[in-house]
């Protein structure tokens, strides 16, 4: 029974590869070239330094490397395994055929292995072989390295399967698809914690331990078994047997554990997911007196509901967590005394303004751009309704601007209160960021109309790769120019002399810009009121000009019709697309 299943899988893979577009083949070649080049650099490094690596140092590197392999497979493999186990389209057919569930499970397991785990295995094996050649290792080194690496790859994959099979029994079925995205984030945090293990298990930092050849982990830690086996094998020592056998035993245990949950976690889990929840998602009772809105507001509200009710949409706000909330928690836990810092609000305020604007650049553009691809298969509705493009554009713009603005302002108020900002600082910061950030949103909206993408299996990826890069660059370029009057406004005029000195030290474009800033600051010193007003006017012209131009261009594109690239997400291996669908 296993043979036809694997044969069928093989045919699907070969057919998929054979029917790729030229563009995809080229991207494969480029990706392969990139990986090959990276491997070449690693191998070259090994060639140069392998003689200098002492055995204890190698032991530490290998142990940490194996932990990284498990972490990497878990990080990238968890969502992949979820797709294979629960959202693959062939399961509908396979479960109706007289095939034991175990066989389907193993077929999926092999299918998952061919992806990220196999790539990781090959990627790590080549440098290990290279090392063996350079240090003229015993011939036993090669098969042992192969077995140990394969064992850790299988352990990583089995853990990914195990997590999925356990989690599917805990999470509510109605939330499973959305939870998967959240799980990707959680797996990221889990892997981060995993890789931080050496730091927590010891008093010294990991780098110090590694370089001084001290053990990173206790002896019983399984990653040490792999390192021991490889090092003994490189000398041809018989001591390789025990750690290798223990590692193999652990691999088998991991596989058995994951297969023990097949019936309950795989088949029943799939059924639960496909049945959906028996509990209907009831939203609060409607208010019969709730008035209807203007079409622009209605478009925005529709977008807001889509954002609010889908956990995956909130992933866009992750940078906020990493760039602001984590550092703030770290800061509050730190040794610095709050009262000492509160004194320097003239320093803390501009720094915070810069940081929040940086977040606006990430969030506003992404959210606005995503609003186009978000229409997905519902795109026909706006196209059929008597809505001019400008209504749709403004409707999408206001909500994609307001959502991050409210969130970041809320956060800014907390930070400001902690750091003791003045009322004037609060108001100036909030108003000016409101003005500047609308320009970023409009740029995002326009780019959304040029490169919208929709993948039913990955709804949060709503922008083509190239377009998202352009969005990032354009957002920062815009902020850079919009910030010049803002910088003049917020930086004390006394810093003019420092800016002048810096401009002499730096040549080229940036030197010229700092030179201009220095001159403007000097003017500010002599007539602060006039320069202040001028700065506000220039900033308003830049931001509202950009906002109006890009919104109107977006509206025109909407009137003409926008194409959303529908990515067929049924096969992980290919990026084949169904024909684009037109929007508006």
């Amino acid at each position, binding site marked *: 029974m296993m043979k036809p299943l694997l044969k069928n899988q093989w045919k699907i893979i070969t057919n998929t590869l054979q029917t790729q577009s030229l563009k995809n083949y080229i991207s494969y070649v480029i990706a392969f070239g990139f990986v090959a080049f990276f491997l070449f650099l690693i191998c070259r490094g090994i060639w140069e330094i392998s003689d200098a690596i002492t055995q204890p140092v190698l032991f530490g590197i290998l142990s940490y490397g194996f932990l990284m392999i498990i972490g990497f497979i878990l990080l990238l493999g968890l969502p992949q395994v979820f797709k294979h186990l629960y959202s693959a389209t062939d399961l509908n057919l396979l479960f109706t055929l007289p095939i034991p569930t175990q066989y389907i499970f193993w077929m999926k397991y092999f299918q998952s292995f061919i992806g990220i785990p196999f790539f990781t295995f090959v990627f790590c094996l080549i440098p290990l072989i290279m090392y063996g050649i350079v240090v003229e290792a015993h011939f036993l080194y090669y098969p042992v390295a192969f077995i140990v690496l394969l064992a850790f790859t299988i352990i990583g994959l089995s853990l990914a399967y195990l997590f999925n099979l356990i989690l599917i029994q805990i999470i509510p079925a109605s939330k499973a698809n959305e939870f998967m995205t959240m799980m990707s984030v959680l797996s990221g945090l889990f892997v981060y914690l995993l890789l931080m293990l050496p730091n927590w298990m010891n008093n010294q930092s990991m780098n110090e331990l590694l370089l001084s050849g001290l053990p990173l982990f206790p002896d019983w830690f399984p990653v040490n078994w792999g390192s021991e086996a490889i090092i003994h094998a490189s000398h041809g020592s018989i001591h390789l047997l025990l750690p290798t056998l223990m590692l193999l035993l652990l691999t088998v245990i991991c596989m058995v554990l994951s297969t023990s949950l097949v019936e309950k976690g795989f088949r029943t889990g799939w059924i639960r997911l496909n049945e959906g929840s028996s509990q209907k998602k009831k939203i609060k009772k409607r208010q019969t007196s709730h008035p209807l809105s203007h079409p622009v507001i209605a478009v925005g509200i529709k977008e807001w*509901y889509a954002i609010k009710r889908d956990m995956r949409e909130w992933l866009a706000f992750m940078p906020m967590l990493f760039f602001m909330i984590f550092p703030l928690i770290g800061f509050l836990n730190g040794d610095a005394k709050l009262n000492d810092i509160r004194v320097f609000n003239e320093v803390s305020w501009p720094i915070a303004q810069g940081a929040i604007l940086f977040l606006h650049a990430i969030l506003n553009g992404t959210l606005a751009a995503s609003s186009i691809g978000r229409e997905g298969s519902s795109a026909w509705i706006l196209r059929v309704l008597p809505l001019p493009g400008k209504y749709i554009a403004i409707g999408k713009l206001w909500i994609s601007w307001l959502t991050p603005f409210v969130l970041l302002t809320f956060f800014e108020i907390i930070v400001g209160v902690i750091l003791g900002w003045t009322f004037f600082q609060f108001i100036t910061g909030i108003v000016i960021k409101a003005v500047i950030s609308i320009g970023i949103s409009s740029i995002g909206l326009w780019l959304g109309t040029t490169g919208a993408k929709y993948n039913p299996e990955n709804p949060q990826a709503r922008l083509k790769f190239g377009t998202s890069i352009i969005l990032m660059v354009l957002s920062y370029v815009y902020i850079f120019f919009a910030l010049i009057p803002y910088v003049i406004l917020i930086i004390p005029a006394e810093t003019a002399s420092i800016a002048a000195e810096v401009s002499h030290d730096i040549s080229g474009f940036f030197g010229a810009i700092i030179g201009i800033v220095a001159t403007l600051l000097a003017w500010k010193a002599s007539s602060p009121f006039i320069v202040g007003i001028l700065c506000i006017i220039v900033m308003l012209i830049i931001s509202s000009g950009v906002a109006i131009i890009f919104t109107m261009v977006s509206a025109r594109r909407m009137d003409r019709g926008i194409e959303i690239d529908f990515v067929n997400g049924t096969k992980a291996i290919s990026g084949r697309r169904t024909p684009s669908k037109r929007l508006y």
Partner: protein
Amino acid sequence: MNTTSIKLTDLSKVYGKYEAVKNLQLEVPRGELFGFLGPNGAGKTSTIKMMTGLLEPTKGTVKVAGINIWQDPLEAKKRIAYVPDQPNLYPKLTGWEYLQFIASVFRIPNKKFQVKAEELLHIFSLTNRVDELIESYSHGMKQKIAICGALIHEPDVLFLDEPTVGLDPNSARSLKKLLRELCDHGMTAFVSTHILEIAEQMCDRIGIILEGRIIALGTMGELREHKGSTNRSLEDIFLELTGGEDQQALISEISKTDQGDK
């Protein structure tokens, strides 16, 4: 007063080298319930999409309520409504919020909206489920809420692509009755369907499309007359015109052979 609700002139659609719709000429008068039939891939959906502004014609014009939909799309769209065969609606809105959104776009007065929405929801037995997210609806329920959304602004012309697919018998009957009633009061309905029984029972006129051309057009009586027999059903006429008769004969042969084997 303009009595023609839909007018297609030389309407064509070409995809690369493939001509999906070929020089269609068609007029549908106001208040008519028009059935649009054809086998799979005959060009039905392409034609409807061109009439609703979803697909740009390669050649020809579409006038809805006297307005060229590709020259003055907003004015034309104010007068039409469309229900596609796959009702992909906003999954994160509730049924009620979806209707509110549509009503907001059409600027319907709030009071009128409340009354109309409740009435439509009652007809399609959706009143108890209207506060649930659309993503939790079955295909049939999505179809029903899409129909409610289409009728909320009382359009002059309603385009329905396979409207009864997924509907339970009660809802299908309610839809048929409602359409008949609305057409009697002046609305025009352009309905594409595979269910010949529905077309036969409820449509004023029927057009059959094959390989992008209208090959038959008229009332049931006219179609029967054209084929020379008053007793023939629409199914017989359809199969004869679209070449399905040969397939039917083949199926009969296979079935006879199978029975002979036994």
